[in-house]
Each structure stands twice: as structure tokens, then as C-alpha cells.
């Protein structure tokens, strides 16, 4: 990254660091609550050979990365459009795609920050969990952060106010999250939902993150990896188009 882009990235990181407590407190509380519920309901149960609590836990870590990296740039951009400070990135000598990537990198950083802190606090409650494929786990988290960071940039540039943002969360993100196999394995779904879930891009992120951590996958990890890369490439192209158009009237 050049100085120009790096400074924008650093600025966006600084922005969430200022509210670091909000950044991590909310996801940690919700993760702990989910875990409390699932460990009571599912104590000692296994799904398709994996410990159910560990299964859900890996899903929750993935969801945390997705939520943080998606909402960070979306919020920042919607706010700066409303306040008018968007003019700072319009005037800066940084190509639109680089602006987008700087925001997406900051989004990933926020996700990383959240996941690491949340994991350090909560992982002790998950008996016998270990990182099986470290590299796969790190790569899956990284791609997921960038992917949903770019989606957040797109949404942040496209929509005008926080009401629309809530709509996007409710009608697009939430269904995607609930059909991503975070709380249950695909094999437990009746046809055709098990098959259709393969078309939910988010399912592949969760699948690969889970495979990286506990070695369990309900779809081929290679397929998931390929889907994530393709979606990222598509999002990059779309993000560039939209950034070019909305940073210049």
C-alpha cells in the first residue's frame, strides 16, 4: 500500500479504535449469550461426528467477522455522506478502487480485533477445542473480512441513510446469516434446503472457517474456497464501478 492509501486505512482503523469498547463489547456479549444457550441445550451432543458446542462456536466466530467487517465501512460511509466529510476522500488523490480497498482492509482489521478479543475471552468455555488447520483458518478469516468489507463499502456508497441500512440488515444479511449453517449442519436440513444453502455465499465462508478450526466441513472446503475467491472478485469489480461513480458526480 502506498502512503496515500495507508493513511486512509489508518484513519479508518483509528475511527473504530475510538469506540473500541462498543466495537468488541456487543459481539462478545451476544456470543456469550448464544454459547450459554447452546451449551445448555446441546450439552454433550454431537452433530455428524463433531461436538455441537464447538460446531456452533466456530460458526459464531465467523459470524462475528462477517458482521464487523460488513457494518464498519457501511456505517462510516453513510455517516460521512450525511455529515459531508465524504468530500475528504473525494478530493484526495487516491483512485476509487484504492479507497474501497483501504476501507475493506480497515473492515477486516476491525473484524480481526473483535474475533481475537472475543475468542480470548470465550474460548475457555469450549472444552477440547483447538485450531486444526491454522493457515486455512487465517486465510478464510482474511478473505471473509475483505469480502464483507467490500460488500459494506458497496452498501455504504449506495444507500443514503441508516433506515435503509436497517432494511438491508433485516432483509439481506439476517436471512443470509440464518441460512449459513452457523447453528446446524447442512445434513440436518430437509431437501431442497440443504442443496439450496450451497448457493448462499456466506455458507461457504462459515464452512471454511469451521473446517480451519475443527476440521469439520459440510461442503467441500475447496469448493468453499473457490466460491469465496469468485465472490470476492465479483465484489471487487462492482465496488470499483460504484466507487468511481459515487466519488465523482
Amino acid at each position, binding site marked *: 500500500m502506498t502512503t496515500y492509501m495507508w493513511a486512509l486505512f*489508518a*484513519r479508518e482503523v483509528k475511527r473504530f479504535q475510538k469506540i473500541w469498547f462498543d466495537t468488541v463489547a456487543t459481539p462478545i456479549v451476544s456470543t456469550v449469550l448464544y454459547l450459554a444457550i447452546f451449551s445448555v441445550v446441546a450439552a454433550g451432543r454431537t452433530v455428524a461426528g463433531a461436538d455441537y458446542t464447538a460446531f456452533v462456536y466456530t460458526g459464531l466466530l465467523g459470524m462475528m467477522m462477517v458482521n464487523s467487517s460488513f457494518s464498519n465501512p457501511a456505517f462510516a460511509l453513510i455517516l460521512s455522506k450525511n455529515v459531508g466529510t465524504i468530500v475528504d476522500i473525494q478530493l484526495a488523490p487516491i483512485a476509487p478502487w484504492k479507497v474501497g480497498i483501504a476501507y475493506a482492509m480497515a473492515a477486516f482489521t476491525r473484524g480481526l480485533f473483535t474475533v481475537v478479543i472475543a475468542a480470548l475471552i470465550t474460548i475457555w468455555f469450549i472444552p477440547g477445542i483447538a485450531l486444526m488447520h491454522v493457515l486455512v483458518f487465517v486465510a478464510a478469516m482474511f478473505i471473509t473480512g475483505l469480502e464483507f468489507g467490500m460488500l459494506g463499502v458497496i452498501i455504504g456508497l449506495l444507500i443514503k441513510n441508516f433506515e435503509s441500512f436497517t432494511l438491508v440488515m433485516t432483509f439481506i444479511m439476517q436471512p443470509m446469516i440464518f441460512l449459513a449453517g452457523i447453528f446446524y449442519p447442512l445434513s440436518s436440513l430437509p431437501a431442497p434446503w440443504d442443496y439450496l444453502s450451497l448457493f448462499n455465499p456466506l455458507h461457504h465462508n462459515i464452512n471454511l472457517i469451521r473446517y480451519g478450526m475443527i476440521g469439520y466441513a459440510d461442503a467441500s472446503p475447496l469448493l468453499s474456497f473457490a466460491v469465496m475467491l469468485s465472490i470476492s472478485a465479483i465484489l471487487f469489480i462492482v465496488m470499483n464501478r460504484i466507487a468511481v461513480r459515487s466519488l465523482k458526480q
Partner: protein
Amino acid sequence: MKALDVSDVTKTFKVKQGSRIIANDKISLKIDEGKIYGLLGPNGAGKSTLINIISGIMLPDHGTLTVFGKNIVTQTVEAKKMMGVVPQEIVTELAFTVQEILHYNAGMYGVPFGERAKLITQVLSDLELEDKRNERARNLSGGMKRRLMIAKAIVRRPRFLILDEPTSGVDVALRQKTWELVRRMNKEGMTILFTTHYIEEAERLCEEISLINHGRVIKEGRVSDIQREFSENVVAFELFDLNVAHLAGVAADGKEFHLPITELDKDMSSVIRHYGSNLKSIKNEAASLEQIFLKLTSQ
């Protein structure tokens, strides 16, 4: 090479029901390096639209623009590196302090990390904001926010500084200081383009100006040339007793009377001969930009 070369720039906006506003209509202007250039015009004339196009944040419908030879539409990033822009509207980051805003802004214009502190200290003293360094920007007063906007634009000492109405909503003392600063930056070698409603400011600061109205350049050139062009038009005089028979062609303008000039010496002496001791004052008036402006924009 020109600092700025704008040729034939046109920009229209769609407004509701298919009608269009022509905000810029074939505007051309050139600014030599090292100059202070004024862009004048009434509200809605199209000044900010032109500034936005020059700044690379709005696309023209037609026309070409270059900043130090870099085409703003096709080499946007390179062109933007030359410019520091102070937009008309004051906007402030909610979360950051003055220091942080300047730090990241300098970085976004390529100033390496290690060089920023020195430049920030310098610019804070330029704008008398030293004691606000660690203040949140949102807590500054309106005038201070305006100065912070200027600080953001000049912190890295751009070659070309653009100010869109830097003195609107600013008290007299601060207005003076702003122009002092502009002069100082200009002496350091910065080329400057600004817009204003205060014509005296343009008259005092710049050699060359453009007057725009309804999106068109209606007058362009050196202030002194424009003044000469218009001043040669009248002999202006005041009288003690207003109830007298006037020379043919004399028109009243408030307390003053104007006689259009055909030949300066002859017209002056015929006024003196006609009014004699009733004359309070007489001059070949160098029209102020204000008068020229009013005259041109009311046509």
C-alpha cells in the same frame, strides 16, 4: 505551462420534470503559475460548480481542464496531487481531534509519516490554531472550523490552492488574516484561485479575475484593464446646488453625476465651463469592480 487551463467547460444539472440548469456554459480561463486569481459572480452563478469540476469531484459534460499539464478528467489522481481545495461548505469529522484530522489528511496526500508532525505544527501556527491541537474538531467555533478547513488544504503546501468563498461567515479580523495568509502562501510560490462575494477583496488581492453570471464568463482579464475599460466611460462630478440646467448627456447616479466620455480633455473642460463654481468635485473615475460588476450583471 499554465497552472490551470480550463477550456469550454459545460455542466448541466437535471432538475425535476426533465428541465435542466446550465450551471457552467462554455467556461474558459487560464491561470499563470504564481498568480492569485479571483472568480466572481452572484449567488448561483456557477462558481462552486466550476470549482468542483476543477477539483476532480464532478465531471464536466464537455470541455477540457488541466492543472500543471495534468488532465483532470483522465489523469485525475495526478492532477489532484497538485491541488489543495477548501470547499465552500464547512464539514467536520465528528470523532477526530484537529491534530488527527491534519495527520491523516496529510497522509492521504502522500506526506510520509515522519514528516507530518513538523508540517502540522507549522500550519497550526499559520492559522493560529496551536492551542486547539488536541481539541475535537466538532467543538471548534465556526470561524475555527473554517480555519481548520484551510489548514487541511495547505498542510502539505500544494502547488495550487483553491478556496471557495473562504471568507463567507467570517468576521472582519479573521477575513484580513485569511487574506494575509493567502498572500503569504502566494509569496511562497503557491498559485491561488478563489471565489468571493466581496469585490473589494478581489480588487486588492488579484491581478486577474473572471466575472461569471448565469454560468457564463461575462468579463475576464486583468483588474486594471477592466477598470480602465470602464473608467474611460465617465467624468464623475458632484455639485453644491442640484437645481441647475444640465449639459446634454449628463445622468444622475445618487449624489453624483456622470457624463459619458467621448474625448476626456474636452469633456472635462466643458463640464468645468458649464458648472463653474457650482462644482464640488470632478474626477475621471476609475470604476470600482463593484460598479462594473453591477453594471454587467444587470444587463
